């Protein structure tokens, strides 16, 4: 019995000990679990805070993208927000300015000494240099310190923990942010990762925005470069912002020329600086200056004030150099043309007047033979005046688009032969051989018979006029495509003075003779024949051109006449009137 009680009491003691131990163990386990949960909860809270911080900053960045975000603004957003996430002694950054200058900005939360600031600068500069591979010297960096900087002896404190946050835009280092503390082990990979994510996101946003701006800028630059006018733009400090290619060519300067170079080039012609100052003080209207002549070019110069998109803040002055050399030449040509035409009309009038005066002086002493001769002179001169007036009327109609041709199906071979036969005596008078070669199977043409005779007359008379020896060959053949005639090709070739290749285009212009200097002494001509011929040929649907091996090697004029058959089918047998909308003006 005793043994039983002893056994029972022993077991109870063991059970009590085991129970106590189990209770302690349970408590410890529960406590650890509780502490673990508390820690996890704190971690989750920290993580949540980081996420909130990240989304706040990213939202701010996104908002800025709407109008203007650049590296400077991105840096300001980040440096202005770091305090919400971590404590620090200083936040500083090194940034590449838009003007190419590098700036170091340092914001001290606590008063620190000069050595601390210099160490910061050294660290951030070292980071920048490692990334760019092109070391910047300390002296090349401008400093801007916010906060209290003490003398070195006053507060000796070291940077005990720091990290750098690079801002990379378009693959280039735009800035480096440095966050430093005088406390040890303040920052690690875990506490800073959110800032690196923000920096990367912000950098990408700035890069994307810059890419859009750069693309727009490229479009604008291309537009400015392709301008036919010279363009100069200066900022408010009269620093050259833009010189386009055309202005470089006009003034013989480079894109990197300074305002002084440009002013120097214009000296004696234009006081550019004064003119720009005047434009800057004016309203929106352009200032037009008198014309200037630079390197044989006549230029009209305008100056305008450039303002921002709201038109409130002046941003600089734009000066355009409008090249009016061609307009001036044309104006002179018109004036010369009028003078020539007046002379051409006045000379025969003088002849007529003096002949009539001679007859009237004493008609009784003039023999019938002399009278006949005088009257023939008057008739011939009047005829030449009439031709000239007709030419001028044709030109006026062509220019007004009112020149009309009446086309019909006709035997072009016959008309061409008849015209060349008429010119044979004139050619023989100059000892020139006039050969005519017309294809036996030449199809009918569709053209204005009167006007096309005018064209043939003009080409033959020119050929004879400008050929002193040799021959004139007239040919007419059907022009074929896939063995089928498409039109009639006519050529009038001569062995005369020929034409330089550069002059061939000008030959068909209204001012042909004035431009090419083709008129020769003793060759009376209005010089309008080829211009009118071109108008006629184009009005009937043909083409006209000239080929020449050069001056002294003769020339061949070609023109085409549409076929009668095809047009008849299209238009019927009636004569069709075509106006001259297509005729190009000189």
């Amino acid at each position, binding site marked *: 019995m005793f043994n039983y009680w002893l056994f029972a009491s022993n077991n109870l003691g063991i059970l009590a000990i085991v129970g106590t131990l189990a209770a302690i163990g349970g408590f410890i386990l529960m406590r650890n679990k509780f502490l673990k949960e508390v820690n996890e909860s704190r971690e989750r809270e920290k993580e949540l805070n980081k996420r909130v911080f990240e989304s706040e900053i990213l939202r701010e960045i996104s908002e800025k993208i709407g109008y203007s975000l650049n590296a400077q603004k991105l840096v300001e957003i980040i440096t202005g927000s770091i305090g919400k996430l971590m404590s620090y002694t200083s936040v500083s950054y090194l940034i590449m300015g838009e003007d190419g200058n590098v700036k170091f900005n340092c914001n001290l939360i606590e008063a620190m000494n000069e050595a601390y600031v210099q160490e910061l600068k050294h660290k951030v500069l*070292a*980071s920048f240099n*490692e*990334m760019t*591979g092109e070391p910047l010297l300390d002296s090349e960096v401008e400093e801007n310190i916010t906060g209290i900087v003490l003398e070195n002896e006053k507060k000796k404190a070291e940077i005990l*923990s*720091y*990290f*750098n946050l*690079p801002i*990379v835009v378009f*693959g280039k*280092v735009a800035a480096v942010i440095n966050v430093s503390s005088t406390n040890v*082990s303040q*920052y*690690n*990979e*875990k506490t*800073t990762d959110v800032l*690196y994510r923000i*920096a*990367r996101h912000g*950098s990408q946003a700035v890069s994307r925005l810059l890419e859009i701006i750069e693309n727009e800028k490229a479009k604008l630059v291309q537009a400015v470069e392709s301008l036919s006018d010279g363009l100069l733009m200066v900022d408010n400090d009269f620093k050259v912002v833009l010189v386009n290619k055309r202005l470089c060519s006009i003034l013989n300067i480079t894109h990197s020329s300074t305002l002084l170079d440009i002013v120097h080039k214009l000296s004696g012609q234009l006081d550019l600086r004064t003119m720009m100052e005047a434009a800057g003080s004016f309203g929106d209207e352009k200032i037009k200056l008198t014309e200037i002549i630079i390197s044989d070019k006549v230029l009209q110069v305008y100056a305008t004030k450039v303002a921002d998109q709201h038109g409130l803040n002046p941003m600089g002055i734009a000066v355009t150099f409008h090249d009016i050399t061609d307009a001036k030449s044309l104006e002179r040509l018109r004036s010369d043309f009028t003078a020539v035409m007046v002379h051409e009309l006045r000379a025969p009038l003088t002849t007529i007047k003096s002949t009539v005066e001679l007859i009237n002086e004493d008609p009784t002493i003039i023999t019938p033979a002399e009278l006949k001769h005088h009257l023939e002179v008057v008739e011939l001169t009047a005829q030449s005046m009439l031709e000239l007036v007709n030419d001028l009327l044709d030109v006026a109609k062509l220019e007004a688009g009112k020149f009309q041709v009446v086309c019909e199906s006709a035997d072009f071979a016959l008309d061409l032969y008849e015209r060349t036969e008429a010119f044979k005596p004139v050619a023989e008078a100059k000892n020139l051989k006039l050969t005519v070669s017309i294809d036996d199977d030449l199809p009918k043409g569709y053209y204005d018979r009167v006007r096309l005779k005018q064209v043939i007359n003009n080409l033959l008379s020119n050929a004879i006029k400008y050929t002193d020896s040799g021959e004139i060959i007239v040919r007419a053949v059907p022009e074929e495509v896939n063995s089928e005639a498409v039109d009639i090709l006519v050529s009038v070739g001569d062995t005369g003075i020929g034409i330089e290749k550069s002059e061939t285009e000008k030959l068909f212009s209204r001012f042909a003779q004035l431009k090419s200097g083709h008129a020769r002494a003793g060759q009376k001509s209005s010089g309008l024949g080829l211009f009118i011929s071109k108008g006629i040929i184009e009005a009937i649907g043909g083409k006209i051109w000239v080929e020449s091996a050069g001056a002294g090697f003769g020339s061949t004029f070609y023109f085409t006449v549409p076929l009668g058959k095809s047009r008849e089918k299209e238009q019927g047998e009636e004569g069709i009137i075509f106006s001259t909308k297509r005729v190009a003006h000189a």
Partner: protein
Amino acid sequence: MSKTQDYKAIISEYIKKQMIILGPVVAVEKARKLEKIKLKDDGAVTQINGDGEEIMAMIESEYEGMIGSIAHTVLLRVIDKTSAAKGEIENV
């Protein structure tokens, strides 16, 4: 010098450059996230477990996540410099 030694030298130099760029703690902790390398606090790699080229690419990728393509530019510069130094040593 073996290939592994070459990679150790390049990666060590690369981490040291990143320590200047990012700051020592952040750069080293970032590198230590890779289990295939062991390194000292000064960035010197003591052990590489695996293909050196692959590890180099992995560490570059880690830094690229922080500073973008500049990480690649810096690595190329380190490789050039290390190769040139190695060439000079071998030519002596």
